[in-house]
Each structure stands twice: as C-alpha cells, then as structure tokens.
C-alpha cells in the first residue's frame, strides 16, 4: 500500500507549499481538494468530481486515503465560517473511514451556520471556544501574554513555548504549541468537557487509529512543572491534543500563506505527529542530524562570565565529551566546521590551530585546548564528531567572499603549496578544445573543466615560488590552492581528511560556498557537498546557488542557524536572558520571545520567568531544526563556545533548573548543546515512524532520492 493523504483547503492563494513539500520528502502521495467556500453547504471539488460535503459519494471518495487533512485555520474566533463543511466528517467514524486531522481547527461558538451547529456531535468532548467568553472556554497559554503579532505566523523568531506531555508515550517534549488563538494574539489551549470525555473513554471503539480501543483519548496535555519555581500550571481539564474516535484534534501545524516551501514553519511537529497517529506510514523516514561551526575556539574573558580560557576549555571539553557520547548512543554524527587557515594566514589566538600551538597561549591553556581537540579527533575517526574545513581567513567571509585575498599566505608542499609555481587566476585566453586552432595556445596551456565546460587556458598568472601573494579568488586555480591548504592543515592537526571522513562534506565558513569554481575544486578533492547559503559569496555578492541546490552531482545544503545570540551585536550568548545583555545578546531577545515584556519585566523577581524563557527558547530552536529536517532537508547548526558560555563551569552538563543552578554571571545555568539534543531526541522517540537519528550522508542520500 502506498501512503496517501487528502489535503482539503478553501483557497490556493493562502496555501502554504510546505504541506506538500513535507509530504514529498516523506514519500507520501497526496491529493488536493478545494472547498468552494467555508460554509457547511460548500462543495468539495475532487479529481473525481464535485461532491456535497455530507454526501456518501464524498465519504466513499475519502475512503481511499489513509488520512484527510484540514489545512485552513484562522486567528479570529469570531469568524462565522472557515471549515464548516467538515462538520459532517466528525461523524464518519466507521472502520473503513480514514483518519481526519484537524490542526488548529476553527470550531468557535461564534459559528452561526445552522448546518454546522446542528450536525456538530453532541458528545464531542472539547469545549467550543467562545470569543465572548474566552476565559470560560479556553485556557490562555504560555503565560497568557499577547504577542505583538499573530502567533500563528511565527517563522524563525517569536515562537510560543510549551512543554507537552504525551500520555501514551509518557514522553515530555518542548514543541511550539498553539491550539487556537484570537485577534488578541494570545495563544490558547483547549478545555475538556470531562463528563463527555469520561463517557468516550469508557466506550469501546474499533478503528485502526484507536490504539486503546476507546472512542476518546487524551493524546497530550501541558506537562506539569518539574520545579516548584515554575508556577505556570494548567487545570486538569486542559488538553492540547485529543482523539475523538478517528478524528484528531491537534494544535496549529502550518500557517496559511501563499509562499514557497521553506523552513519557516516551526509548528510542523504537529503535522508529523498527526500523520503518525493516523497510521500513515511514510515511504521514507527523515534523518535528523546536527552540525556545529568552530567546535574549538575561545571567547572573551570579560563580562558577564569572566571565564578564563581554561574554564572555557573545560566547558567545551565536558560538552564535547557528552555530545560524542550522545552521537555514539544515537547512531548519529555531529559534523563540525573546524576553523582552518590559522596555521598560515591568521595569528588570532582564539582559533583552533593557534589555541593548540601559539606561544601566546599558556601551557595550561594549550593543554586544555588539546583535550578538546583530542575528543574531536577521536570522534572524527570513530564517526561521531567528524570535522571538515571551515576557513574564515580568506578575505573575510569564506569562499569567494571578496574579489581578491590580499597578502594570501599559502601552505608548503603538496601540489599547490610553495615553492611550486602554480596558476592563481584564469588564463587570459580560454578556448574550447574542439574549436581551438592548432598552434594558437601558448606554451603554458592547460585544460580546465568546471562543470560541463571544458576550456584550454593559456597566459595564466602564476604564483612563482613565493608563499605570500595577492590571490584573485574567482577561479578554480585559487579554489584549489585554498582548499588544499585547508586540508593540509587538517592533516597536520591529526585528522585523516578534511571532509568529515566518509561523509565528504563540510560546513562552509559564513555559509559561503563560493561558486562553480569552488564546487568543482571541492569535487576534485573528494567532497560530495557543502552547506551553503543561497547568496553563496557574501560580501562580494555576485553569486547564487541554483534553487534545487544541486550542481553537477554536488550538494549545496541549505543552512539553518540554531544560535542563541546576535553575532552582529554580541561576541557570544549571555544566556537565556540577561538584563544587561547587548541588543540581541541573549536568547530571548535574539529570538524575539519577550512577548509583552513578560520575561524581561519580572526577571529578577519572578523565578517562573526563567522557566518561561527556557520553554520558548527550546521550542523555537527545535522548531527551526525540525523545519530544516522536514522541509528543506538542510543543515542546522550552532556555534558551541558562543552558545555554551552561559553554562555553569562547575555543573556543565546539568540540565536547566531555573535559579537553582547559577552560571558565572549569577543567572540560570543553561547548556544549549545538551538541552537541544535531548529535546530533539524526545521528538525522535515520539515519531519513530517519521524521524531517525541519521547523518549528513543520510540527508544527501535522501535529497537525491526525493529531488527526482
């Protein structure tokens, strides 16, 4: 059986293409059906004809699907109609009927449509929201504070937090959750009619999606606090996900907007959860993997943490030891872009090579750095923490970040190193070999192939025997010199290669993959792909990758940062929140999570706000990561030391515990690496049919599988 679902929507002009992109990535077939309106009398246009929403014909048509998905949602509880036509389907509960997935459904008491109200099941156990009595019909969620915008449109920032307890699985996970919202921009959870639920929960019901054999099942509730500090609690009749017979009542999954499929969909956990609960078995699972940039580096020893270099190394050592063990246990690989180029081109002692070998570092600092380095090397060799080249020393911004790298210093030996006299720029004359007249090419002619184009070049500027020269960056000759020098440094550092071992991949510096000449050179050195921004040579800004991010068999994997600080204004993160942080210097302000100042205004007096910040940060970061995994098949990453400075040096691996564990700035301790990976692991464990811990190789394999 091929998995197949039906998407029902009213208007393609507000249809988010991420719905279908995710289904394609999962190998789930889909059919779009268009409702002619939002009322109960609207018709449903299907490929097999136009049907009344209550007709046996439509019911029969739906029975070919594993699930029927309602795509439309609203942030206005007073709206009289949106998906009123679906009310009939709430009673299509026979074993032959498909599962129905309602995400952020509009079932407000403000709906006056008699066709809707007279057919709404009398035993439905969730209280219909009433815009005139919100407090009596819904529970304000996540602190109950209003955002400055509709919470349904949160994309990369501005998320709402929730720690959700999944009852059957007995798993707690932080996932962005809004059951309903209103024009006041407050998120809400649902209120259960406990009497009706009790009846349903004791009623035998047979359908493949009824795991417990009962007509009603509470799927998920707000997780109870784990600390007495956390006073954000909900009544016992508060639910966030419910199964009514074969009908799944689920939180918001996808915002309505006419847009291309992209990774600005942080709520999509609920789509994956709903599909799995509905028994839709995808052809493919999605590989989950994490990347880091600059796995070994130091930051300022100043405020607010005043961490000595050896202290910073201690935080990194403990965290990397834990991450290596995590990767080993979960059969994943945390790939790392290791800063290279500093052996030859940069004396900044903050970077990898100089941390290990520069005499400007004390012996104790070098020893501490070496301990981190040895974890990375060992992890590279065993496959848990593979490292690849990541070069900020050419120009300012990675590959082809400027037109010329002034005073470029190359390596020694190998093919392109000093003292070999090698080409450094494109030949003055370049002619395709099949139209090159005999005797025209100069004595220095050589054949150069970039992609499908092969040319004979001559009159080629060369390096001479020297080490230092100005290097024009826009040719394959420059790319070869640069990449070989980076690999030489990786070998000198004790790594057996420069491309994350068998993955043949790396995270480019600043996500600048250069352009065709760099991709060709990387292929020549054995790379299969790199992480790349769409604008792939900032700050020169003359190049873009192809929209499919695939060039002559070479992958250009889309990036997704999971950092918790604004690198423009701060050198590193000041933690979840810090009253004195520079603009965007803490996670809450960087991710725009301080809704109505409900974190900043009481931070020092109300300990519950630290927990609120923790929930929102973890939800937002995980939502970004999950969207990258499911929509763009990209690479999510963070900068370890930049995000781990807020960890307590004496309790690095401790889990967040509010104000009970303080960091060096006397703020709540938070280890971004541990929290992020463990939260994603909870989600992977919740969705075993849909996600698995994989590697960047799995991601590239899957890209080839579904890109067609």
């Amino acid at each position, binding site marked *: 059986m091929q998995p197949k679902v039906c998407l029902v929507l009213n208007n393609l002009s507000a249809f988010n293409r991420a719905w279908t992109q995710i289904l394609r990535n999962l190998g789930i077939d889909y059919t779009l059906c268009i409702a002619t309106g939002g009322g109960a009398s609207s018709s449903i246009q299907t490929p097999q004809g136009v049907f009344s929403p209550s007709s046996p014909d439509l019911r029969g048509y739906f029975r070919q699907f594993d699930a029927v998905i309602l795509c439309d949602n609203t942030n206005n509880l007073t709206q009289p109609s949106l998906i009123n036509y679906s009310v009939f389907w709430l009673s299509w509960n026979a074993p032959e009927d498909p599962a129905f997935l309602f995400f952020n459904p509009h079932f407000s008491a403000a709906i006056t449509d008699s066709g809707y109200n007279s057919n709404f099941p009398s035993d439905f156990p969730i209280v219909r929201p009433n815009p005139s009595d919100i407090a009596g019909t819904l529970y304000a969620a996540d602190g109950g504070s209003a955002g400055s915008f509709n919470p349904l449109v949160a994309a990369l920032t501005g998320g709402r937090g929730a720690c959700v307890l999944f009852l059957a699985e007995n798993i707690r996970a932080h996932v962005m959750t809004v059951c309903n919202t209103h024009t006041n921009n407050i998120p809400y959870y649902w209120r259960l009619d406990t009497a009706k639920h009790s009846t349903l929960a004791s009623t035998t019901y047979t359908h493949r999606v009824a795991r417990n054999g009962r007509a009603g099942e509470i799927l998920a509730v707000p997780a109870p606090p784990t600390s007495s500090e956390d006073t954000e609690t909900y009544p016992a009749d508060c639910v966030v996900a419910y199964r009514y017979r074969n009908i799944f009542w689920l939180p918001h999954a996808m915002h309505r907007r006419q847009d291309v499929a992209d990774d600005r969909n942080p709520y999509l956990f609920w789509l994956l959860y709903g599909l799995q609960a509905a028994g839709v078995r995808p052809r493919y699972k999605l590989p989950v993997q994490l990347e880091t940039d600059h796995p070994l580096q130091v930051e300022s020893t100043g405020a607010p943490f005043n961490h000595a270099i050896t202290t910073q190394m201690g935080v990194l050592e403990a965290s990397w030891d834990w991450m290596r063990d995590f990767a080993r246990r979960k059969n994943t690989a945390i790939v790392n872009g290791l800063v290279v180029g500093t052996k030859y081109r940069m004396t900044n002692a903050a970077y990898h090579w100089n941390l290990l070998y520069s005499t400007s570092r004390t012996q104790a600092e070098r020893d501490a750095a070496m301990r981190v380095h040895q974890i990375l090397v060992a992890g590279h060799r065993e496959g848990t923490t593979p490292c690849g080249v990541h070069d900020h020393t050419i120009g300012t911004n990675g590959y082809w970040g400027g037109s010329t790298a002034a005073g470029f210093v190359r390596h020694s030996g190998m093919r392109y190193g000093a003292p070999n006299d090698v080409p450094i720029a494109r030949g003055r004359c370049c002619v395709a070999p099949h139209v090159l007249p005999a005797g025209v090419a100069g004595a220095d002619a050589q054949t150069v192939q970039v992609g499908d184009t092969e040319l004979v070049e001559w009159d080629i500027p060369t390096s001479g025997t020297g080490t230092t020269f100005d290097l024009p960056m826009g040719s394959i000759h420059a790319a070869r010199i640069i990449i070989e020098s980076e690999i030489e440094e990786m070998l000198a550092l004790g790594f057996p290669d420069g491309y994350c071992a068998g993955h043949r991949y790396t995270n480019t510096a600043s996500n600048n993959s250069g352009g065709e000449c760099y991709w060709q050179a990387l292929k020549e050195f054995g790379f299969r792909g790199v992480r790349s921004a769409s604008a792939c040579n900032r700050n020169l800004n*003359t190049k873009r990758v192809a929209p499919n991010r695939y060039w002559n068999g070479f992958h250009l994997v889309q990036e997704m940062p999971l950092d918790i600080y604004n690198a423009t204004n701060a050198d590193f993160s000041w933690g979840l929140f810090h009253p004195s942080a520079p603009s965007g210097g803490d996670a809450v302000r960087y991710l725009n999570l301080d809704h109505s100042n409900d974190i900043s205004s009481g931070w020092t007096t109300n300990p519950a706000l630290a927990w609120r910040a923790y929930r929102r940060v973890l939800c937002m970061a995980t939502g970004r990561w999950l969207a990258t995994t499911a929509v763009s098949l990209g690479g999510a990453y963070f900068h370890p030391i930049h995000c781990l400075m807020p960890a307590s040096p004496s309790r690095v691996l401790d889990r967040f515990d509010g104000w009970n564990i303080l960091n060096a700035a006397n703020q709540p301790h938070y280890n971004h690496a541990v929290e992020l990976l463990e939260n994603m692991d909870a989600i992977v464990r919740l969705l075993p049919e849909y996600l698995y811990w994989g590697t960047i190789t799995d991601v590239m394999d899957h890209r080839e599988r579904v890109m067609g």
Partner: protein
Amino acid sequence: MAIISYLTESGEERIVRPNTPLPVEVRNNELDTLLVATTSVTTDANRDLLGSTSTELPTLDGCGRYRKLVWFYFRAGADSTTYRVLARATDHNGAPLGAGWQLLATGTLPGEANSWGRIEIPATTDGYYDQYRIEVQRTSGDSNYNLTSKIVGVR
C-alpha cells in the same frame, strides 16, 4: 549467446542486437522550473524577487543553457510597480565578466490586484545569459503586497 533481451508488447522475447536495440522513449525535457518565490513588493529600489537589494547579486545563476526565461506571476496588489530585468555573462569559473548588468527590459508591471502576468525574457531573440537579476519596486500606494513568481527556463 545473447545476454539481454526484452519482452515486446505482444509478449514475444526479443534479443537485443544492433538491428533490434532496446526500446527507448525519447522525451524532450526542454523546460526547467528555475524559481518559485513570493516577494513582498516594497518601495525599495533595486529589490529583487528574492528580496535582496544587493545590486550585484543575481536572482538566478547558471542559466547559460536557457534560450529564454518565462516569468509567470500573480500579483496580490494593484499599486503601480516597476520592474527591471538585468542580465550578464560569466566566465567558466562562474565569475561575471565585469561589474554591473545589461538592462534587458524595464517598465510597469502589468496587471491589477489578484491578476496574473507573463513576461518573456528576453522579449525577442535568445538569452543564454548566465545570470539574471529581476527587480520590482512599488511606486505608489501605502501598503506592500505579495508578488508570487514562477520562472521557467526554456532550452
């Protein structure tokens, strides 16, 4: 000994020989979808379909194989909007031959609110440029609107 054979539609087994080669279906794949994007059309000068105002940054790269691009769009707003289509060639390394662009077309974006449009690039003759930059700028009204575009490349 023949090692490859195939079944014909009538069920007959046919051995692959020079005069009875494997049946193949020849398809001309002359169209490629190159871009689908939703752009918020603002009053910013030099803002391209991908939202960038960096004037040297192409909207589409690696287009040298395409004789023509066809730009379909759906505009949600009616406010007067100008567009510019710029193009240039690169060398085999992907580097532009020089700074700046060749202006292929400019004008007022046709259509009212919630209307469709289609523009051929170039309007006449063939393209084969490596890079294109397509800019839109709202010149009237107070509100930005969404412009959803699809660009296909014709070989």
